[in-house]
């Protein structure tokens, strides 16, 4: 029997993106630069997170024309890279619109203003796969329980400061390592403490990893940042503002793609890091106000 939208098919696309870079793009021209540089996928947006942060106001799903324009431009130039787009946390109608438009992956994202402060989208109801942000293992497993086919660290989007992505990745991988050491009788209490489904806690203990791919996002701005996240256990990276808020996006994009492939080889990293023009200026997250943080959206 032929089946579409199974968990295996959804996770399958996430598996294909591993070892790659997913780049935020806001125009057809940027999408072509990203594809040419070797992006494994593009995230179609109206504004990159740094601009959303600067402009303030309510950030919503992009205008379908923006997303369509990017999909069409890639098709015309014969690029077949998957296209992702963001829906607000809990805004299942935005997600339905994105699915109907033929977007390949939906990011239920804290970068946009949440539509629901209590409930995330029931992602099992969709054929399109979802990626969700997480700051720790409990949050990751809650999203997977709701049907997410990929987890990414939240980091602090639009900051250009990698410190939060590092914190979140270490939190997730550290909790996974700890779980693998627990005796079975402690798992239910652990599930209660994490606020995570018992079956998924058991899966993580037995397999030493999440049941879906685990990517990094939020503040990655340089090839070395990307390689650092891979060394810490990320299976791919999202680069949001870091590419098109820099001075030479095409060269930086290529350098980050190379860095993610050769993340264990410092000689390659030295070579691709050389002579890049200015990185995005960025914001020091430790100097930011609590209320300006995007990562605390969702639970």
């Amino acid at each position: 029997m032929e089946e579409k939208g199974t968990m295996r098919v959804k996770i399958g696309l996430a598996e294909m993106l591993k070892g790659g870079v997913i780049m935020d793009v806001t125009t057809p021209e940027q999408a072509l630069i990203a594809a040419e540089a070797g992006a494994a996928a593009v995230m179609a947006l109206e504004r990159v997170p740094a601009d959303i942060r600067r402009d303030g106001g309510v950030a919503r799903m992009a205008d379908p024309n923006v997303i369509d324009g990017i999909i069409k431009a890639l098709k015309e130039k014969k690029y077949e890279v998957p296209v992702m787009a963001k829906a607000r946390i809990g805004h299942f109608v935005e997600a339905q619109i994105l699915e109907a438009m033929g977007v390949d992956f939906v990011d239920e994202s804290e970068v946009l203003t949440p539509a629901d402060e209590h409930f995330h989208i029931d992602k099992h109801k969709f054929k399109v796969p979802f990626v969700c942000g997480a700051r720790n293992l409990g949050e990751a497993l809650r999203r997977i329980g709701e049907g997410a086919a990929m987890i990414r660290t939240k980091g602090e989007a639009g900051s250009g400061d990698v410190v939060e992505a590092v914190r979140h990745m270490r939190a997730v991988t550290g909790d996974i390592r700890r779980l693998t050491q627990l005796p079975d009788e402690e798992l239910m209490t652990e599930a209660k403490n994490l606020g995570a489904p018992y079956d998924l806690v058991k899966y993580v203990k037995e397999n030493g990893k999440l049941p879906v791919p685990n990517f990094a996002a939020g503040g990655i701005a340089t090839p070395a940042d990307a390689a650092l996240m891979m060394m810490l256990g990320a299976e791919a990276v999202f680069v949001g503002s870091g590419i098109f808020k820099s001075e030479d996006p095409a060269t930086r994009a290529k350098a980050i793609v190379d860095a993610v492939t050769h993340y264990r080889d410092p000689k390659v990293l030295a070579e691709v890091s050389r002579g890049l023009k200015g990185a995005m200026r960025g914001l020091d997250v430790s100097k930011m106000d609590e209320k300006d943080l995007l990562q605390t959206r969702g639970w």
Partner: protein
Amino acid sequence: MGRIGALALQGDFELHIKMLRRAGVEAAEIRTPAQLDSVSGLVIPGGESTTVSRLMRRYGLDKAIRDRYLSGSLAVYGTCMGMILVCSDTEGDHDLAQLGFIDATVERNAYGPQVESFESDIVIDSVNGAGPMLFRAVFIRAPKVTRLGDGVKILASHAGAPALISQGLCLAGNFHPELTDDWRLHKYFLDEFAARIGD
């Protein structure tokens, strides 16, 4: 049999490594031409063809793989994107690092967006001489074969389109056995292709 590599530039190479190990062979990630020297077989995984083409060219892997294959010292199995790269042509005007080991034309992403990706049972012909084999095939934004040269064997089809093909020392499929727990196809690649390479 010597070691088998999985091209590890981008894509789901880790799952292939796991399958190869379960099928009983030593497996390694291949990112440079020097690493290619140590293997007698290579799996080219699923991934993004533009990304992998650029990285193959930049690090000289397209030439290294082609030289080894043409000298008869390397067997190759391509899945999905890997199938695109081992074939000779694609529909339309693409600048991909195609290796041309199988005389066939493929259309990339022929089934539409991800919501059209699917899994289905297919029947694979005479694997390991044991007769037809039922296989759960997972198709993710899959390519489709639109033309086959004379010397190409069809080992399995889905809805009239070839799903598993071979020519010479090369095997290619547009579905992902590595997304299941079924390693029989990896074993088939080892026994029927990689085993023909002298140690």
